[in-house]
């Protein structure tokens, strides 16, 4: 029996429906879980994604042919039936369910299991085979509750604001930046944004996502009048000449990798906030259990270790070779 999905050199391929999921080389028909650059690449003939993911895809990939589906609605493609289900990773992100005959597979894309108050909460989908990400698939990764992290960020900002200094926070421009934004206490001061973050904010606001007010930093922005503001920028911008305009600012990064002291120190920011849009170790195991899947394929991160653990715990698991890995999956990547 041919598997419902298999890894090819172009991406996860469904032979029954002749389409790919999150392919990394140009293909005719691509189903996209979410807009991060390792999942949504340019050059495909046709794109299919959730309604909420489409504006970001257009924003990032330009003039592409996109069709959309609401969450949960089934669509027949060839001999396969596909549907999109919330992944809780960022607004519009989805897991993709593929059924062929009686056989159900789910490709998770990137996901987190705890609600963040901003995107559609993760929804477990029953299946026979589950292709899961495992960016943080080690038992050392366990996230603190979101309000705790929010309190840490606000305390750090309030301290900087009290000294009249800027607080520069490095966060990936799609997803993490908006999540951080939603956690901030507007009573502390104004929030400024780097161009890459503001452009994404604009796309998401236009589709109705309620985001607090932000000011885009331009050469004309009166920074003196906004001393003590929090500035959200892509991590790579923090070490660049762009950041120098804020003077003796305090700097921080928000990422799951900040759980590790070595990486926190390597980043050379003053602070590291452990805030991830990927599932932690307990989250991954809960999600896998909830699918009821017997077979699990692991992508992103420590796939071999993770699969070995699943095997020892009674699943039939193996690593799947993909070219995913971007935003948080590569802790050292500049973006």
């Amino acid at each position, binding site marked *: 029996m041919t598997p419902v999905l298999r890894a090819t050199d172009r991406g996860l391929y469904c032979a029954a429906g002749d389409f790919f999921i999150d392919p990394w080389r140009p293909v005719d028909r691509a189903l996209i879980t979410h807009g991060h650059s390792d999942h949504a690449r340019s050059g495909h003939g046709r794109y299919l994604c959730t309604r909420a993911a489409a504006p970001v895809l257009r924003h990032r990939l330009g003039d592409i042919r996109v069709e959309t589906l609401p969450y949960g609605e089934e669509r027949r493609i060839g001999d396969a039936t596909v549907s999109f289900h919330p992944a809780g990773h960022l607004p519009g992100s989805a897991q993709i369910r593929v059924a062929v005959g009686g056989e159900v597979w789910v490709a998770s894309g990137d996901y987190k299991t705890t609600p963040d108050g901003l995107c559609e909460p993760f929804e477990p989908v029953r299946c026979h085979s589950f292709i899961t990400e495992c960016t943080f698939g*080690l038992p*050392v990764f366990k996230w603190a509750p979101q309000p705790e992290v929010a309190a840490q960020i606000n305390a750090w900002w309030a301290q900087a604001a009290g000294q009249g200094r800027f607080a520069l926070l490095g966060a990936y421009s799609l997803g993490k930046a908006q999540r951080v934004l939603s956690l901030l206490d507007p009573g502390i001061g104004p929030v400024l944004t780097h161009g890459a973050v503001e452009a994404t904010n604009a796309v998401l606001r236009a589709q109705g996502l309620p985001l607090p007010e932000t000011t885009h930093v331009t050469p004309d922005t009166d920074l003196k009048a906004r001393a003590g503001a929090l500035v959200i920028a892509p991590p790579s911008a923090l070490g660049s000449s762009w950041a120098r305009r804020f003077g003796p600012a305090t700097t921080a990064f928000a990422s799951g990798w900040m759980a*590790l002291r070595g990486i926190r120190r390597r980043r*050379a920011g003053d602070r590291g906030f452990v805030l991830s849009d990927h599932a932690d170790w307990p989250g991954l195991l809960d999600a896998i259990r909830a699918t009821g899947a017997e077979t699990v394929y692991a992508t992103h991160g420590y796939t071999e270790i993770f699969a070995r653990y699943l095997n020892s715990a009674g699943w039939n698991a193996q690593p799947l070779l993909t070219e995913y890995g971007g935003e948080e999956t590569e802790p*050292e990547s500049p973006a």
Partner: protein
Amino acid sequence: MKTFAALYTAIDQTTKTSAKVAAMREYFRTAPDADKIWTIALFSGRRPKRAVTTTQLRDWAAEAAGVPLWLLEESYPIVGDLAETIALVLPPPARTTDRPLHHWIEALRALHVASVEDRRLAILSAWDQLSVTERFLFNKLITGGFRIGISRKLMTRALAQASGQDESVLAHRLMGDWSPDSIGYSALVEAEETAAPDSRPYPFYLAYQLEAEPEALGDPADWQAEWKWDGIRAQLILRGGTHFVWSRGEELMTDRFPELARATDFIPPGTVLDGEIVAWKDGVPLPFARLQPRIGRKTVPKALLRDAPVILLAYDLLEQDGTDLRDSPLAERRARLDALMRSLPPDAPVRPSPAIPFGDWPTLAATRAEARAEMAEGVMLKRRASPYLAGRKKGDWWKWKLDPMTVDAVLIYAQQGHGRRANLFTDFTFAVWNGNDLVPFTKAYSGLTDEEFRQITAWVRRNTVQRFGPVRQVTPEHVFEIAFEGIQPSPRHKSGIALRFPRMVRWRHDKPIQEANTLDDLKKLLDAH
């Protein structure tokens, strides 16, 4: 542990030196004395005697976390620190406690006389009442290696500010083999000192690498040149009829080098010498490789004593007749040293490291070029008028090393780094050609920029041919220029050679792998040295 954890967090949460020192100063002003003395001990590389092995720690942590041991072992290299791995993997504590640092140290010391089962229960109970940060620090008390982003120098500065003592006096007082058992905080830091312990060494003066041409140093007549030996920097202390040998890392090495005991037969008490321990035979130093087997050993087997006997090549006299000479100029210290050395018989375990006469810089440059033939790494330049300072200070002492030897080699294996470099591929194995085969000949870890490490990491992920545990074999495609300070024959290695201080100096994007060096090239270098 909360106060100590707060200090750690304050230091860890800033990259600014002034903020770190301020946090330490505040701690030294407010913490209880019993905590302070232990904090000083920990931050200067001391730790309570180990009551629990790291193997036991791993077993018990895996058990408490409900994960298989192998999974904890696999996580460790990714986290980069065992104490941190365990702190993170454990379930959240069930309780909290206000017990201070010294309480936990006492508790650990009490375990020396406890059964293994009682030790296990005590450790599990500690973990169950400490937060992640407190646990990390508690584990560090056991595993050692308290490098938490504040150097000993900064700690001494903070302590000087908090206590009102002079910083250099404190630096000297903190040297040597005191422990919180033998001395309390006020006696170590605050009290007027009546008699210093005989064993206490002076802080070592460390040289900077000379980057400019030596002409920039001015008149050659102001400078003294010596060989830069490739051995172990050491202070030999002769006081009260006995002797002590200290390493630069403040390790007491007296028993490791029993040859030096005979120095007490020839040199009067009240003498402190600074120099280099080298393996020595028939009037010449042996290569560092011969000395190496003696480094890790607490006691030395007879065969090794015969094979690699050591002496101290002395180049400075820090104390004579019990008087601290560090403030007098080098020229005067050197004259006294030479006079002292002249009185020694030829078989004494101490010899002078001779000053190299030179009239101008080109002459010295020519002499330096001969360093390898003298079994030296280059020359040292010391200002004749300079006092003996503490620590690394620019201006008076320079090391002027030979240019390294280099080869172009092919990257064949890669492994992820530890700690700060966790998650980057930073540990590489390189090969040279032997006919049509690539023969591995060295590993190297450093020398690339962060950006280059990121690039090569992304490349390694995409070009892994095979995995052997944490090691990845990669497609032979990239050539790197490898620099090193020495080359020696080594039957233990497949290539038959071993390099000293290998590091990457350049990523040769311009070179195809066919143009990498050959094993014959390396053998020629070996014959030449």
